[in-house]
């Protein structure tokens, strides 16, 4: 078997992966860096991020206020030491991106412009129109082209982490172009593979978002954290699930029901004003807005559509000039995919699976409990996002923790031993598995798409915006059945060259494992917090559950759930208040929220 060897290996070439790669190169230019990505890096899903990236930039703002918004937005499940590091480093990272050429929107005097965003009490979201992720990703990708120590493995799909003697020693990957299965050895591996929205039927996530990194880590023995916290973004286009950015609301858009009524006022989110008010109404947090939609739907005040009920996002009063200047992509997407012109018509929207708060459990430097394995970006759970991420915190999270993980990996790789022959033997095993269980197998009876569709349906039913024990148990049972049927999956494609069906089969395996951790964590958390709402346990329970779920894979393949304490530094658990004057950043009341 062919083998190549590096010091630090990144799995994934999106915002976090590319930022990490540059960080490694900056720490030690002698380190050999590999970026292994199943797509060309500029195709990574960071490209779809629209609204912006939060980082304190203006004199009226402070790091403490950004921290408080993040922590209260996360319903006090964020680790506050991580949040403090995050808010401090986010502006520097965004500035660094400016120095690399990112075309940020500007004030008339040439300084960086910022916009409002949901759950944020101050304007602090940097933006490049409504294509912020696209511009960040291309800026990062183009910047990496000048670093010679970075070797790219474009369109290589990672199937396994090589773990020997308690350390990660590299990966096994398939080169899609040739079908070659190869060990890529490394002293340190950083997972930067993003999220897994494709586990659900209706998602903003790209086809490539299958929880690869989460499953790789989980199978290798590293724990996942807070997997029950799944973000529904309140405004997706029906059928396609295309995201209509929160920036549409921060620029002044209204959410209205079938009667044209701004229904969020009925859900403890403040009173409607003509102009957007920070941390109020349409600028409330995503979990609360998506939950409000469900209630509005139950009251029969939504609008039926062939692809589920919708409400309307009304931008008409913003005018063509503002929409073209600040939200051109929103207009383009609505015209193209919905045949609706937001200048003249209201946009039909419904909540859509968007982001995973949970992920591979890491410390503040991206390290996991498994030596030599790190993670950053959406695949990781540091945790800054707690039970609900605020819009525009994920892009800077990729940068801050990508850079931190890169630096930590560089340090580790400078001292770690080179991989030995055992890793090679493990890689041979993996190749045999791929060839006998999938590529050359005949006689299987299950189609990939059938299992995938059934998985997505049961996940929406059991682990959607509202959950309850009975449905979660049904979900767990169904997933067990699907795991069994997955063993009987049959490929039509037995060729080596660009075998996307083999890739889909492996991705489905990843998603089934990750789905199981979500359902198990959701079953065990008998409280409601942020994006995890149990109809049978409607209150937040800080006595029992001011804690991170951690889920390990048992040798028999089952998921074991345990808990870790949340790090509280300066903000004791309090009530989440939106739509009114918030309490001062340094002291919320220690009461339980009742919603």
């Amino acid at each position, binding site marked *: 078997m062919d083998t190549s060897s590096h010091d630090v290996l990144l799995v994934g070439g999106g915002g976090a992966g590319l930022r990490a790669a540059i960080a490694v190169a900056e720490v030690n230019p002698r380190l050999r860096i590999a970026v292994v990505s199943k*797509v*060309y890096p*500029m*195709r*990574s*899903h960071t*490209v*779809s991020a629209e609204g912006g990236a939060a980082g304190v930039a203006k004199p009226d703002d402070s790091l403490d206020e950004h921290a408080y918004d993040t922590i209260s937005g996360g319903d006090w499940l964020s680790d506050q030491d991580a949040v403090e590091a995050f808010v401090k480093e986010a502006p*520097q990272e965004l*500035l*660094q991106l*400016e*120095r*690399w*050429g990112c*075309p*940020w*929107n*500007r004030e*008339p*005097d*040439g*300084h*960086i412009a910022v916009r409002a965003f949901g759950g944020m009490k101050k304007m602090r979201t940097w933006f490049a129109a409504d*294509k912020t992720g*696209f*511009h960040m990703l*291309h800026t990062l990708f*183009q*910047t990496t*082209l*000048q670093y010679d120590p970075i070797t790219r493995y*474009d369109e290589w799909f990672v199937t396994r982490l090589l773990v020997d003697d308690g350390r990660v020693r590299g990966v096994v990957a398939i080169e899609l*172009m040739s079908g070659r299965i190869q060990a890529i050895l490394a002293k340190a591996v950083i997972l930067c593979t993003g999220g897994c929205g494709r586990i659900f039927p209706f998602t903003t996530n*790209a*086809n*490539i978002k299958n929880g690869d990194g989460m499953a790789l880590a989980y199978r290798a023995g590293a724990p996942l954290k807070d997997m029950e916290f799944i973000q529904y973004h309140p405004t997706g286009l029906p*059928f*396609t699930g*295309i*995201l209509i950015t929160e920036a549409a609301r921060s620029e002044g858009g209204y959410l209205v029901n079938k009667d044209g009524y701004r229904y969020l006022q009925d859900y403890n989110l403040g009173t409607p004003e003509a102009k957007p008010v920070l941390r109020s109404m349409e600028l409330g947090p995503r979990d609360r807005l998506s939950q409000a939609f469900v209630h509005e739907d139950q009251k029969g005040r939504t609008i039926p559509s062939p692809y589920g009920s919708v409400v309307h996002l009304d931008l008409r009063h913003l005018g063509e000039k503002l929409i073209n200047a600040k939200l051109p*992509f929103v207009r*383009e*997407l609505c015209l*193209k*995919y919905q045949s609706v012109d937001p200048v003249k018509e209201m946009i039909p929207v419904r909540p859509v699976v968007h982001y995973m708060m949970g992920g591979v459990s890491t410390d503040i430097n991206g390290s996991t409990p498994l030596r030599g394995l790190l993670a950053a970006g959406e695949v990781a759970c540091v945790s800054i996002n707690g039970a609900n991420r605020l819009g525009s915190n994920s892009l800077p999270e990729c940068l801050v923790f990508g850079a931190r993980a890169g630096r930590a990996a560089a340090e580790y790789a400078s001292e770690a031993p080179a991989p030995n022959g055992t890793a090679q033997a493990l890689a041979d095993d993996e190749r045999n598995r791929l060839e006998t269980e999938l590529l050359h197998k005949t006689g299987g009876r299950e*189609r*990939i*798409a059938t299992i995938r569709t059934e998985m997505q349906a049961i996940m929406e039913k059991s682990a959607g915006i509202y959950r309850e024990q009975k449905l979660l148990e049904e979900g767990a049972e169904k997933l067990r059945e699907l795991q069994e049927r997955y063993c009987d999956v049959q*490929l*039509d*494609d037995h*060729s*080596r*060259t*660009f*075998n*996307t*069906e083999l890739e*889909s089969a492996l991705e489905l395996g990843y998603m089934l494992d990750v789905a199981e951790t979500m359902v198990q964590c959701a079953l065990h958390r008998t409280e409601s917090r942020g994006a995890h709402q149990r109809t049978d346990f409607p209150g937040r329970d800080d006595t029992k559950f001011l804690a991170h779920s951690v889920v390990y894979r048992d040798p028999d393949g089952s998921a074991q759930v345990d808990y870790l304490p949340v790090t509280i530094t300066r903000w004791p658990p309090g009530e989440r208040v939106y739509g009114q004057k918030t309490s001062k950043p340094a002291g919320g009341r220690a009461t339980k929220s009742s919603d």
Partner: protein
Amino acid sequence: MADTITLEIARYSPERDPEPHFQSFQVPVHKEWVVLDALNHIKDTEDGSLSYRWSCRMGICGSCGMMVNGEPKLTCATFLSDYAKHGSKIRVEPLRYFPVVRDLVTELSEFLAKLKKVKPWLIHPNQPPLAQGEFLQTPAQVDRYKQYSMCINCTLCYAACPVVGLDPIFVGPAALALAQRYNMDSRDQGSDDRIAVLAHPDGIWGCTFVGECTRVCPKHVDPAGAIQQYKLTAVLEWIKSFVMPKGADAK
């Protein structure tokens, strides 16, 4: 509108086929379906071996470019209904002028090499420390290069460009537009570094200004405009090199 439509899809497997051929599939026509949805329908229900790239399904990742009835298109933004109206078939092929890996998948490594060749990164030696804040750039200065920064690397412009067809080493529209994106950025000082690649027979002077690249660009980048603009710059630089000794011009 017809209930179903025929997709004639180019198939090619280097392990099996001496040369590409077409295979027909019947797919339902739903109002919301794009060509990519039809391909996914075929792959999920009929033939899992059909190979193509896709990811975001919202016209921003640049993966799913193909020839649709002879035109380079993003298949995630090309609706079946636009073709079904005329009751015609839809012919789907890999993007023209690229080597074909398999079915609808093209080889992109040459394109990536061309991108790198034009040094598409901000060149500004001796930057002040980060603590001094951002480079100031007015909205008007952003507007000078913004359009050229919108390229999603979908390579439709290469499939549309007859010069690429005749001369595979021509740097090509997207890479030239990207170079101009940095040249026009007030923060960049790298135009001298890029001129050798750009003002070369395989650079801008390869372009015969057919303008097809601009016509097919799904993001309105206008590579043809970028190339014409740069031709003027290059000529002025060339004249200046006679008038002024190198390095004497003020930046």
